[in-house]
């Protein structure tokens, strides 16, 4: 049953690849804007690399969250899914995992390329990719709460970003400081421990929070 749900999301994605490609394209362009807009001095680029890549990943995740519930809400599938005899939290967990595989994993796979663009060393790229690997699922899990509260709103615009910002900032700081610490030769265990903790906590609690938010949204 869960596998069917998972493969449903994957199939939908295959039918509408351009949604995901748009998000990836946004990520690439956003990352490229930083050196273009600030300065292409290699030393400076190395300093801003973790922040730039993480921020771009953050915005791309928020952009992709838009599509998480909106289509299912539009054609009524969302309400039907809420009525299924499956625990809603479990259903949502599968949805969110699928969503991350589709939108978050490509970001993680592209990260080494971005790191090279900024002139990072090999071990720094590894740390960067690992931090995104742990961080992007948390972004998706937390972001789903914001997406669930604002789904279907016409005038939401940047509201989701505003709502999610206080939740995202600690994670952003952890992720970027992990890479910066790697650059300075400082031990990164603490950063990854905290990020891992955030991942585990959000894996367990976020589906319930999203379920509550969806119940509020759908009455």
């Amino acid at each position, binding site marked *: 049953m869960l596998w069917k749900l998972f493969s449903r999301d994957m199939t939908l994605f295959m039918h509408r690849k351009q949604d995901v490609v748009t998000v990836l394209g946004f990520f690439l362009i956003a990352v490229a804007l930083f050196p273009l807009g600030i300065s292409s001095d290699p030393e400076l680029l190395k300093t801003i690399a973790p922040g730039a890549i993480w921020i771009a990943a953050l915005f791309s995740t928020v952009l992709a969250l838009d599509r998480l519930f909106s289509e299912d809400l539009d054609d009524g599938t969302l309400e039907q899914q809420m009525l299924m005899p499956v625990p809603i939290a479990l259903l949502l967990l599968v949805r969110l995992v699928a969503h991350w595989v589709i939108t978050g994993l490509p970001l993680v796979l592209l990260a080494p390329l971005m790191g090279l663009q900024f002139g990072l060393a090999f071990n720094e790229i590894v740390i960067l990719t690992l931090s995104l690997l742990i961080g992007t699922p948390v972004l998706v899990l937390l972001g789903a709460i914001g997406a669930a509260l604002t789904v279907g709103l016409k*005038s939401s615009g940047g509201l989701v970003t*505003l*709502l999610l*910002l*206080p939740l995202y900032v600690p994670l952003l700081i*952890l992720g970027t400081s992990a890479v910066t610490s790697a650059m300075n030769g400082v031990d990164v265990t603490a950063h990854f421990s905290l990020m891992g903790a955030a991942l585990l906590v959000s894996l367990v609690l976020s589906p319930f929070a999203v379920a509550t938010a969806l119940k509020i949204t759908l009455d």
Partner: protein
Amino acid sequence: MSATRRIHWMKYASASNFYPLANRLAPIFMGLAVVLAVIGLYIGFFVAPVDYQQGNSYRIMFLHVPAAWMSMFIYLLLAMYAIISLVWRVKMADIMAYSLAPTGAMFTFIALLTGALWGRPTWGTYWIWDARLTSELLLLFLYLGYMGLYSAIPDRQRASRAASFLAIVGIVNVPIIYFSVIWWNTLHQGSSFSVSEGASMTSDMLSALLLMTFACWAYTIAIVLRRAQAVILERKKVALWASQISKNKET
């Protein structure tokens, strides 16, 4: 015959009972706020001595510190009302939360603004991204997010429930923000300026600070009660008692 009178614990959870009470209390608290503020500011600006480290520029502390305290406490109050509103479906609690938000946001903004003005002469910069300032900024975003979500959803009941849920999720965030003050110092070995308001505060400074704090509290109570009154009149338009009051106000 039973001579016992039942205590109506939930009497003021009804808007029609709350409104006259608020009407009576608001002017009292506003008057109290003005009196306390005048005395507090007088002591703070004219009586308290010049600080040996910061000269006269420290005096903005008498507005900055109470504002910062209020910003945090009002958020906790807001979240408490949000829980009551969401769990027990008490509409008056939602009205209180909705009325608290703008005042909380205002105090957060004042804290940030006065902090910047204080930072310029003492630190040499208007802003610095240390944990305390950043967490205050995030608190402002929490308030703005609550108000923004509330106004973005057209259906009032769904809006109140969604915004209450958001406020509650925001509480989970507050300890994270405040623990980050500790984490950040261990992860980034960089300097974090902590302004010493001094264990050594003269009694004049302390009394001015306390007076200003009470003044801010009284102001908050007065203004939130007034705002709640306005919200009640707007939402209970159809009720007879409310429309009577609105008509009287118009004439």
